[in-house]
């Protein structure tokens, strides 16, 4: 597609998505918020973990930090300022943690990132119960579901737009090379640690803002709600289903899986975790590189072996 046509198609898509809540009721608006949250989290996860292949289970750590910052600062300052503070905390934690851990490779990083989420949850739980003598907090910020949806839509556009910009430039070459072979990237002159850290912080910023933007919808938050590990797992599965190394992969994974998980939580609430695990296994076995990769391989078979470029969106 020509760039002008692509830009117009994207603008029409965003305008259409922005208009959607005006045509549905309260339940529909709630579904739209959940759907856009899934798109943001899967895209933010893939922003860092997709090309670098550092599988992170820390999504919920940042999501929860965002939500809890709103809960702590509610009624102390305007919502926009609270979002800025939450984002700054998310980025600070990501930089701190990233500096210490991004040297870890493979399974060690996965375990660490999972441990980080649990650590943050336990620290907040301890602080709330020991110092504040309470577990949950109430949030009194009056924001409609539509306003929250629009903010999440803007965040999704920002995350996908950032990824698009990265993929177009020399940074895109660096992150894919890091995912393939860090030694190659280093010897080509890439400051691997700096690139990984920058991407991890960007991804964490989006996750933190996603949690902060949605916090007013819950009215009441406690660590077990906003630090639920399923948030990390579902973001990862969604990105993998679509294809984490591709620009639109996380969106293609997030939309069907969001509706599948919604249906699951209504029809089989007791077996949700079991089916979640099974879904993960099925995706890893059947479409390890995502459905977009599968579709492209099919296309290449019909067009010939050298069709297309090596790095895709």
């Amino acid at each position: 597609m020509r760039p002008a046509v692509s830009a117009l198609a994207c603008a029409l898509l965003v305008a259409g998505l922005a208009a959607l809540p005006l045509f549905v009721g309260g339940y529909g608006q709630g579904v739209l918020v959940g759907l856009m949250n899934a798109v943001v989290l899967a895209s933010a996860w893939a922003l860092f973990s997709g090309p670098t292949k550092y599988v992170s289970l820390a999504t919920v750590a940042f999501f929860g930090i965002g939500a809890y910052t709103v809960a702590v600062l509610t009624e102390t300052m305007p919502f926009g300022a609270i979002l800025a503070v939450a984002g700054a905390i998310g980025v600070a934690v990501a930089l701190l943690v990233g500096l210490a851990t991004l040297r870890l490779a493979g399974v060690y990083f996965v375990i660490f990132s999972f441990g980080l989420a649990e650590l943050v949850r336990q620290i907040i739980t301890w602080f709330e119960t020991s110092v504040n003598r309470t577990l949950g907090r109430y949030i009194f910020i009056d924001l409609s579901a539509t306003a929250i949806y629009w903010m999440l839509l803007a965040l999704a556009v920002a995350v996908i737009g950032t990824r698009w910009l990265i993929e177009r430039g020399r940074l895109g070459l660096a992150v894919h090379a890091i995912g393939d072979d860090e030694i190659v990237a280093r010897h080509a002159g890439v400051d691997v640690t700096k690139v990984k850290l920058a991407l991890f912080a960007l991804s964490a910023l989006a996750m933190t803002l996603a949690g902060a933007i949605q916090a007013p919808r819950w009215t009441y938050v406690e660590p077990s709600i906003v630090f639920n590990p399923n948030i990390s797992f579902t973001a990862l599965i969604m990105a993998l289903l679509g294809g984490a190394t591709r620009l639109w992969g996380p969106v293609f994974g997030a939309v069907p899986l969001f509706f599948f998980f919604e249906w699951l939580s209504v029809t089989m609430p007791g077996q949700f975790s079991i089916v979640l695990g099974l879904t993960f296994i099925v995706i890893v076995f059947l479409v390890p590189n995502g459905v977009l990769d599968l579709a492209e391989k099919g296309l290449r078979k019909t067009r010939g072996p050298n069709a297309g470029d090596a790095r895709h969106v």
Partner: protein
Amino acid sequence: MFEIRGLSKRFGGLQAVKAVDFDLAEGEVVGLLGPNGSGKTTVMNLISGVFPANGGSIRLGGRRLDGLPAHRIAKEGVSRTFQLVRLAPSLSVRQNVLLSLSFGARPVSGREAERRADEALSRVGLEGVGDARVPDLNYIDQKRVELARAVATRPRLLLLDEWLAGLNPTELRAAIALVGSLRDDGATILLVEHIMEAVRALCPRSIVMRAGEKIADGPTAEVLNDRRVVEAYLGGAAHV
């Protein structure tokens, strides 16, 4: 131009490189020889910053390289190939070359980078395959991509680690001619190699290592007839 003094590296109880000294003049092509396990690749890895040295110094044009991370050493003008080909398979052939042009010494971008990448690819005999996927190339062509990535930045020092290994006789002749053309253009090259035909053709001077130590350094023909070098390659049999 390039100077190594007292370079040492220890892995646990193993002294892999022991107080190695040598110099390279600008435009010189030098063979780094020795039996397996003699420390040649470790020296290459120390120069390019894969791991830090335990002692000694490495200088390029007066600037110290030892202690710098690999990406800073690349920016100082040191490029290398690896014993086993290392490329980024998710990038196209041209993008692999663009990677070093974008981040290496004197980075370039945009059309200039594309032009330089295609120039490097045509230099190694890969004209017109810039858009190909790396896994679709055969072994020798993957080696060529690696060489194109290394030479595209016009490095001050090029490290070739057994770049000629695994080639058939026809490919070997073509590869020797290719490295020879780099030498003719004035590149300074340190070449780790087991193929003596290539060493004789390309390197007027050679350095030989055994068990981490430098045991000979001089004109290649003389070095290869040196008693200690023959012993190093043939062991005790050289005496009988």
